[in-house]
């Protein structure tokens, strides 16, 4: 009868799966992205090279290929026995971190150089300068692109479904295997994603407004 009501527990699990993998890989992407952006503007050449290599590699590899590597190569040679959820979150988080890094880096570049020089001249270390003086002033410019990046991440999480991570797209596959009409299935999946992406853009708009009030 109704594809959603009849299969609600599976749908709910799929939805929670999408939300979880989105949340976990967002955290990974944000954390790594900011760190790597720090590397890229660091005075230490090896860190800069590593940052550049990371971004080049992660940003230019098709996400599906990255997933394949994480699911079939990484467990073979590095960490056997990781759950598909962890592997998927890592692949998606690493991939997205390169985009976060570049957004943060361009935000850093909008902060006048004199700010960092003043910080260094009172004896702050590079990390302190970045953390206390530069990044807080970059945040405002970084928030709008970050919003798009995390929405893209949400949609990219669908690829994880193909690698047996329980998420919304996996539910779609299950339903079509069960022989349900494809159109309502897709509509429900789309609504599921919309809920997540709308929440993300809402959160970011809230953040943006709060920053505006703050100064």
């Amino acid at each position, binding site marked *: 009868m109704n594809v959603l009501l009849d299969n609600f527990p599976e749908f709910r699990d799929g939805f929670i799966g999408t939300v979880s993998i989105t949340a976990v890989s967002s955290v990974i992407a944000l954390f790594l992205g900011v760190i790597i952006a720090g590397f890229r503007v660091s*005075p*230490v050449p090896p860190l800069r090279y590593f940052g550049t290599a990371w971004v080049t590699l992660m940003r230019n590899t098709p996400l599906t290929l990255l997933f394949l590597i994480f699911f079939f190569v990484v467990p073979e040679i590095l960490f056997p026995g990781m759950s598909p959820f962890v592997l998927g979150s890592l692949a998606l988080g690493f991939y997205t971190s390169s985009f976060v890094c570049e957004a943060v880096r361009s935000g850093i570049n909008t902060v*006048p150089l*004199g*700010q960092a*020089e*003043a*910080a*260094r*001249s*009172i*004896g*702050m*270390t*590079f990390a*302190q300068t970045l953390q*206390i*003086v530069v990044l*807080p*002033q970059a945040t405002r410019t970084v928030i709008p692109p970050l919003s798009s990046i995390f929405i893209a991440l949400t949609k990219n999480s669908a690829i994880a479904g193909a690698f047996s991570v329980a998420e919304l797209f996996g539910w779609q596959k299950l339903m079509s295997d069960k022989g349900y009409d494809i159109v309502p299935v897709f509509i429900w999946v789309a609504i599921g994603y919309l809920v997540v992406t709308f929440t993300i853009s809402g959160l970011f708009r809230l953040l943006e407004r709060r920053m505006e009030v703050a*100064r």
Partner: protein
Amino acid sequence: MSGVSVTKDAEGAAPAANDLVVLSNVNKHFGALHVLQDIDLTIARGEVVVVIGPSGSGKSTLCRTINRLETVDSGAISIDGKPLPQEGKELARLRADVGMVFQSFNLFAHKTVLENVMLGQVKVRKADKKAAEEKARTLLDRVGVGVQADKYPAQLSGGQQQRVAIARALAMDPKVMLFDEPTSALDPEMINEVLEVMQQLARDGMTMIVVTHEMGFARSAANRVVFMADGKIVEEATPDQFFSNPRSDRAKDFLSKILHH
């Protein structure tokens, strides 16, 4: 006009204990441009040195090499007997001892005036918040902007911002203060309020290196004028000697230009 007392001791002599900043044979290039050429300069504790010279002569660069905001290609710089270390924690520690005041103030835009003056004390000197605040307020009062403590830099006039910047540098208890054209970005009516603060500092015995074209300040506060042109130190003299009787043609030429307008 006898005894140019400012000429350095014999080259290679052991550095006097009283020498605070010593640059020896410093060279720096920006690409093909040789901005600093064989610079030798020694600043004694408590001395106030004014650096003067035409635009592009390398004054700012000289200033910035002293706290290693610019690296040098060759030569040595030492502060209080310690050579400038490589980039890293040790350099950061040394920079805290060298106050710097910029032409464009560079106050932390996202912090209040009070926070600007507290930040270095708390994060670099690891002072406790209360002591830092007390000291910050004292310093802000001293430079005459105590009532602005809770405003953001953008809400202050240029002269006020520059005085806050001086307070921010002083909060670190620096051994020496560098000023790079501290009044050049200011409207004329604000220049004096900043110069007065600097004059008071000089009277209090602070060691200062000041890039400025303010001759009034040089005459009243400086022990020595260093004239730079094309990346070289062309002349060193007392302010009186320099302004009334410059030796080099470059200096004569330069002074005639800044005096006649």
